[in-house]
């Protein structure tokens, strides 16, 4: 039933925009949708969780849903005055796909049935593939194809994992997580292990864990700014969610250690790949994409450690989503200012457009985990967790990789922001507001959460 509610507005609005085909209307519809969405998210989040309890939605879902709602709202505002140079038809397709994309993400976030989660995740791929290929040139087409193809294969493997999970269960198997976790003890460990591996690879492809991350930089760098923000801020978390659920299942079947091992292994791999390419690439959007890979790796490590570090992982997810979204939107500004994606070709941002420049710098500072960024605290707690669990080696590796990532990002950011450019430009206000809002929230929300539930 819940899913009907979620899909109701998109379907209607989609039909409407398809009929009328006017850009203004589309933007308006998107905005309305995002507002409703945000309202629902807040309703889920706030007091006492009555609504979420009624709908049988657990904390993870609420958290991830709220994050995606915030992001969607920000993106909707951002796109208001941005001229996307689209024909009415295209803009309608854009609106429809965007709404479908968001709705399917919600489905995946809110559902507690692995099968449905799978279906929705697959749907997100389809919807967003259209969105990525929007600027019709070779690169965007190629990026979209790679995204579609690799992710479909990954998702197929994830489905295989689901089948194996069914095999693993004794009589009258089911896919609803609660049931599975209840009977966790009787699950056949051999099949469970297999299914976990398949899901890890499958959904991991969508999360962008190395070495299945290859689609990610392409897709994120070629999509329009708003979409990139949604992709890396919301979609990756959505794909991460089933993995976390599976971790719960494994620990219910006394296989938690295995999940932790694999999580840490893949997390380190992602960190490493991110470090390698952040030092290499010159395209700033790809840079941001790689930094998303890195953060996904950190989050995975955090959840591998569990308890306190796990909570830190949630904070990190939130922080990364908001900051990275702001970062991608600022990158959108940068692109519309310089029309170049190579950061050596755009310098002197601070003198050309101070707002974007400072937004960029603050995003940089936040994303590398400098205070007052939430990532600072989360990373602190993750380090605590690593020390407590005696993973000194992992910790040392983490710090070394982090240092080189900081260097790479810093180099790019200074190249972009410093320097001098004689022409001064101003962008419409609605292209600064969302980033500022997101960054403020990134600082405020963790503190608020801390205040509400110490």
């Amino acid at each position: 039933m819940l899913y009907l509610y979620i899909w109701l507005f998109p379907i209607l609005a989609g039909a409407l925009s398809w009929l009328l085909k006017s850009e203004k209307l589309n933007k308006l519809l998107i905005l309305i949708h995002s507002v409703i969405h945000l309202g629902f998210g807040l309703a889920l989040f706030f007091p006492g969780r009555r609504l979420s309890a009624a709908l049988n939605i657990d904390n993870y879902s609420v958290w991830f849903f709220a994050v995606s709602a915030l992001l969607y709202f920000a993106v909707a505002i951002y796109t208001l005055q941005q001229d996307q140079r689209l024909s009415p038809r295209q803009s309608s397709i854009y609106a429809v796909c965007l709404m479908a994309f968001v709705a399917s993400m919600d489905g995946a976030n809110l559902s507690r049935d692995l099968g449905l989660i799978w279906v929705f995740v697959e749907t997100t791929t389809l919807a967003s593939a259209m969105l990525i290929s929007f600027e019709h040139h070779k690169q965007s087409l190629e990026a979209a194809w790679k995204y579609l193809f690799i992710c479909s294969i990954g998702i197929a493997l994830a489905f295989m994992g689901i089948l194996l999970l069914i095999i693993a269960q004794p009589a009258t198997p089911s896919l609803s997580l609660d049931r599975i976790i209840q009977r966790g003890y009787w699950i056949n460990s051999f099949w469970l292990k297999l299914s976990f591996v398949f899901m890890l690879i499958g959904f991991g492809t969508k999360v962008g864990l190395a070495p299945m991350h290859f689609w990610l930089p392409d897709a994120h760098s070629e999509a329009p700014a708003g979409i990139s923000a949604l992709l890396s801020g919301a979609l990756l978390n959505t794909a991460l969610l089933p993995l976390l659920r599976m971790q719960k299942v494994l620990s219910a079947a006394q296989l938690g250690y295995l999940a932790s091992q694999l999580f840490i292994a893949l997390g380190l791999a992602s960190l490493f790949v991110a470090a390698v390419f952040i030092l290499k690439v010159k395209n700033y959007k790809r840079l941001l994409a790689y930094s998303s890979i890195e953060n996904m790796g950190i989050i995975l490590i955090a959840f591998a450690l569990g308890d306190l570090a796990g909570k830190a992982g949630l904070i990190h997810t939130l922080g990364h989503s908001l900051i990275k979204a702001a970062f991608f939107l600022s990158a959108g500004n940068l692109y519309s200012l310089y029309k170049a994606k190579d950061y050596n070709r755009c310098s002197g941002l601070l003198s050309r457009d101070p707002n974007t420049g400072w937004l960029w710098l603050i995003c940089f500072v936040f994303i590398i985990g400098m205070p007052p960024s939430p990532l600072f605290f989360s990373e602190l707690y993750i380090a605590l967790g690593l020390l407590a669990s005696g993973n000194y080696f992992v910790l040392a590796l983490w710090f070394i990789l982090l240092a080189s990532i900081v260097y790479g990002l810093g180099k790019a950011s200074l190249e972009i922001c410093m320097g001098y450019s004689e022409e001064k430009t101003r962008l419409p206000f609605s292209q600064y507001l969302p980033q500022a809002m997101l960054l403020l929230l990134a600082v405020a929300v963790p503190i608020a959460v801390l205040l509400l539930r110490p």
Partner: protein
Amino acid sequence: MADVLLVIFGVSLLFASITNMLSGIVKILVWQGLILFLLTILKTTQLNLWEFAFVALETIVFKAILIPWFIQDTINKNGIIREVEPSVSNFFSLGVMTAIFAFGFFIALWSGKSSPKLYPLHFGIAFSAILKGLFIIIANKKLITHLMGYLIMENGIFLLSLAIGSDMPHIVSLGVSLDIMLSILIAVLFINKISSTFQEGDSDELSILKD
């Protein structure tokens, strides 16, 4: 009876690794669709009309007719060369196929102990189909072939889902098949777009984006 069908399925996989024409693989897809239909009929003990209709739609109409037609159409429309042009020789791919079979059955037999309700032959074939699909993707350059590999893989997964019988909630399986159908449609769409933008649908051309 079921075993025979399974074996035919396996043989079709072997055939896929030696055929030189794209149309050959398309034919294989058709055959596999039919086999899957029959297998479903055999597997499901009690058969109400809805399920029958659904399965028939999913396998016959969709897997065996619609998609192959689509693909053939794309091939014709975009004037894609009709040879498979694999980057490895048939002999080699045959060898790999054998290895895949061996691996699949090894897993199947090993796992057979741990789960009685699983029929090793069935599982082995399904598993090898999945791996074979991946291998076809790896070993070929044409996007269309990639798509076919993906389809073979999907067939393998379908086979596996048959192996566990009707434990899947219908809503899920409905969603699943819808998703797959959509994804294939969109993929075909993209292939058309791509082959109109690029010279020919060759994955070597699609390597502008790299670091």
